[in-house]
């Protein structure tokens, strides 16, 4: 076996400000997903530091980091990863249940979020009964459940057809407009073009950044429902 160490990222220095809409692009293996996982605190760097909302995550214990992900971050995955045995509403309620939100309150918020993503009529359908686009919208609602400060999406349109991908883009636009900070990893040029700042990665390094022309707003909290 060749145990050669591969550095997925090298010398990356990046700051994301509240309210930004950032796209991370690059070819396969360039380290995009690894960078997103580092930002999201689900992976740790071999050297260097990652601060989330001013907290160096290297100093956090697993329980604290898990709690941080639960309450301050939202994740959207390419393959949605909803629990197939649960309904759309139950999937959205899951992070709130974990956070200790009372049942009635989380039920109300889940329906509010499903309405926000246009799925109020599908709340009681199981995940397996939903289309790809619907599942991704449920995943977005789930990511928003605990009012995160930062939303991270990994190839959110990768499994969707063009039309459905456009719907998701529209939703992201609306979320950012409503004050949600978004970081999106994508191959999708259309999606990348939507973002205010595009970071190009190649072989684990940032090779270029297109900064926003105007400073992004700095809301204290997201205003999505």
């Amino acid at each position, binding site marked *: 076996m060749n145990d050669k160490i591969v550095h997925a990222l090298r010398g990356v220095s990046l700051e994301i400000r509240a309210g930004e809409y950032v796209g991370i692009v690059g070819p396969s293996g360039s380290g995009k*997903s*690894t960078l997103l*996982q580092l930002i*999201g605190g*689900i*992976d740790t760097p071999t050297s260097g530091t990652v601060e989330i909302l001013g907290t160096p995550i290297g100093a956090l214990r*697993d*329980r604290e980091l*898990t*709690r*941080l*992900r*639960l*309450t301050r*971050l*939202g*994740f959207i*995955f*390419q*393959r949605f*990863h909803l*629990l*197939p*045995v*649960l309904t759309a509403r*139950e999937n959205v*309620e*899951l*992070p709130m*249940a*974990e*956070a200790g939100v009372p049942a009635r309150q989380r039920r109300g918020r889940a329906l509010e979020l499903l309405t926000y993503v246009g799925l109020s009529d599908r709340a009681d359908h199981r995940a397996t009964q939903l289309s790809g686009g619907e599942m991704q919208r449920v995943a977005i609602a*789930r*990511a928003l459940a*605990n009012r995160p400060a930062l939303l991270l999406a*990994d*190839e959110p349109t990768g499994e969707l057809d063009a039309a459905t991908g456009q719907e998701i883009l529209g939703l992201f636009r609306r979320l950012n407009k409503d004050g949600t900070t978004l970081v999106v990893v994508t191959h999708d040029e259309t999606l990348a073009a939507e973002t205010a700042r595009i970071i190009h990665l190649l072989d684990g390094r940032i090779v270029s950044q297109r900064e926003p022309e105007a400073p992004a707003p700095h809301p204290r909290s997201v205003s999505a429902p």
Partner: protein
Amino acid sequence: MTGLAWSWKSLGRHRIRTALSIAGIAVSSAMLLDMVMLSGGIEQSFTELLLARGYQIRVTPKGTLPFDTEATIDSISGIVQRLRAEPAVAEAGAVLGAALYGRKGDSLVTLFGYGIQPEAQALYRLDSGADLAPDDTAGLLLSSPAARLLSAAVGDTVELVGRLDPQVATAAVRKRLAVRGMVDWVYDYKDQPSVGAVLTVIQGLTGRRTGDQGSLIMVKLSQDSAAASVTAGLRRSFPRLEVNSVADLARQFKQRLVYFRQLSYILGTISLVVTVLLIATLLTITVNQRLAEIATLRAIGISRRTVVGQVVAEGVLLTLIGSALGIALGLITARYLDDILTSFPGLPAAFSFFVPRRGTLTTAAVVLLLTGCVAGVYPGWLAARLPIAATLRAEAT
């Protein structure tokens, strides 16, 4: 959405697999329950049988147990009188057990005869007709199998024949007795044709009248708690006889059954291990099929505790359903097995190998519940230790 509801839905993903697993757990649980019932049931059933009529002490010939041999106690009526004079003794009655014959037309049928003292009998329950009076030397009691064999009923006359031994050319002794009642003999084996008459009648039929012989004396005490001390006192008073309390007999019986108990423990443990392996295998497969889902849950902030709890809850749920079915199955199979085992010759029909007790059922249920938790430990650990980032990367490729 509670943890158990979530687990229930998760188990519903693969219904056939879950159903097969539950069936497997039910069979293992049934076997475990049967073995637990068997390990303590024989002893309990034996004790209950000995105490069926409330007599706590048995006096037998030295070195023997009741009806263990054909040895007899001489001058048994006098010993009974002495026992009845003891302050702690409420009742005492002599019993003589012997083979007899009954005439049916021109032929003789083999019977078992009990010579009893009706004023202190501990061997039967009256089903119909009348009981014997202490001095009723013309009356007879029949068991249902004996009545069938002799085609006799209450009010009929039956001829009993004793001392019929062609090999030693002993002359037969005959006596005609009127059937007073139909009784259920407590210690009879299944379909045993037994008859009972007052002690002197059976002694006369079997040639044991001269020596006033009997097989055993059954003693009932005024207080149950005095059994041990009275037994010790009677041993001192009657050094040439064997005096045992029911507790002593149960202890001796238990020693004889030690291998039986060990076997039931071994089989019970095997069924428990099979249950653990079955559940652990199913949950491990389930966890391995849901690695991406678990990694996602961890990524969105679901704690290790919740994830492990959900896996363990699935194990507990499987165990609960499987055990509930297993307990029902175990009780049914125990009943059938009991019927088969108690059909063996020489075993009292009232004896039971499998005795369902609340304590036994509770023990089995608790053990099975713990089994479900233990079985969830390894798959739960797998889920808890799952590397989130690596799993999500592997899932994406």
